[in-house]
């Protein structure tokens, strides 16, 4: 059960981390299944993790801190220092300009989701000075081989909530409402 979240949340998170570059200060927007895995990999690599959660979501904030984030706050907050890169797992387009504000010149913003609400217009100065916005689409077999070798070596520990197959709608609702800590996993 603990391995299941590695197959998408973990793999996509790993590819996002690769796309984020080598910078040490890493912001993660949306602290759910993917974030709690990629944070462990980032920390293993010696990076500092800054967790951004839904405004007022104290449980998610504490979850990020418990995993080793040096700072955690609402996605409407400004981190205490400029970030080298930010990964967006929350499918909220408004977070793109927010993340651009949070990264330093030359920083990278990686959008990790397959879908996101529309990105609002923002002033060019947020992008200027060689900041980069990019998306991640899926994974490659090489990503899978790399990550599935790395995860047990770290070792990555997933936080899961177990649901029976007949509770699939309940699990979806928990994900939709942000009631999960970590990942929901269905078992037959």
């Amino acid at each position, binding site marked *: 059960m603990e391995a299941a979240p590695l*197959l998408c949340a973990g793999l996509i998170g790993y590819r996002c981390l690769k796309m984020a570059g080598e910078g040490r200060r890493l912001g993660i927007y949306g602290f759910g299944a993917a974030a709690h895995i990629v944070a462990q990999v980032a920390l293993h690599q010696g990076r500092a993790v800054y967790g951004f959660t839904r405004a007022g979501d104290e449980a998610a904030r504490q979850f990020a801190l418990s995993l080793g984030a040096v700072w955690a706050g609402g996605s409407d907050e400004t981190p205490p220092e400029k970030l080298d890169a930010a990964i967006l797992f929350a499918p909220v387009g408004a977070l793109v300009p927010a993340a651009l504000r949070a990264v330093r010149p030359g920083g990278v913003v990686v959008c990790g989701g397959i*879908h996101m609400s529309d990105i609002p217009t923002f002033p060019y100065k947020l992008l200027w000075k060689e900041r980069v916005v990019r998306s991640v689409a899926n994974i*490659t077999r090489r990503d899978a081989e790399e990550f599935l070798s790395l995860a047990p070596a770290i070792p990555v520990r997933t936080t899961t909530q177990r649901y029976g197959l007949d509770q*699939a*709608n309940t*699990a*979806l609702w928990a994900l939709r409402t942000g009631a999960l800590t970590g990942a929901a*996993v269905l078992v*037959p």
Partner: protein
Amino acid sequence: MLLRRPKAKLEAAEIAEPQPGPGQVKVRVCACAVCRTDLHVVDAELPDPKLPLVLGHEIVGRVTAAGAGVEGFRAGDRVGIPWLGWTCGVCEYCRAGQENLCPRALHRLSGRWRLCRIRRRRRAVLLSHP
């Protein structure tokens, strides 16, 4: 658990047990994580869902049978199955190791919130032999 129409609740359903064709393995599902992409599918935020659809794409399971031509997998193997279902293997992206961008890629041949699953060999990841 079937999604019969967009934005509907999933419904329990009996589905015929599949048999693996050439290049495919049959996997008994042990666990499948729930992903935000599943919500995007339910909410009709992704194009062309093949309804009715069994959701799920973060699976760990055991190989129970292999189709003709399958090498490297055998019954009892513990495997992981991610979102990407199939890529052509011949386009410029596939040949460059960027098969995630293959224009012919299939992402959800069917779903995995069911007991058995057919998977094309190249897109299953071997986790351990028995």
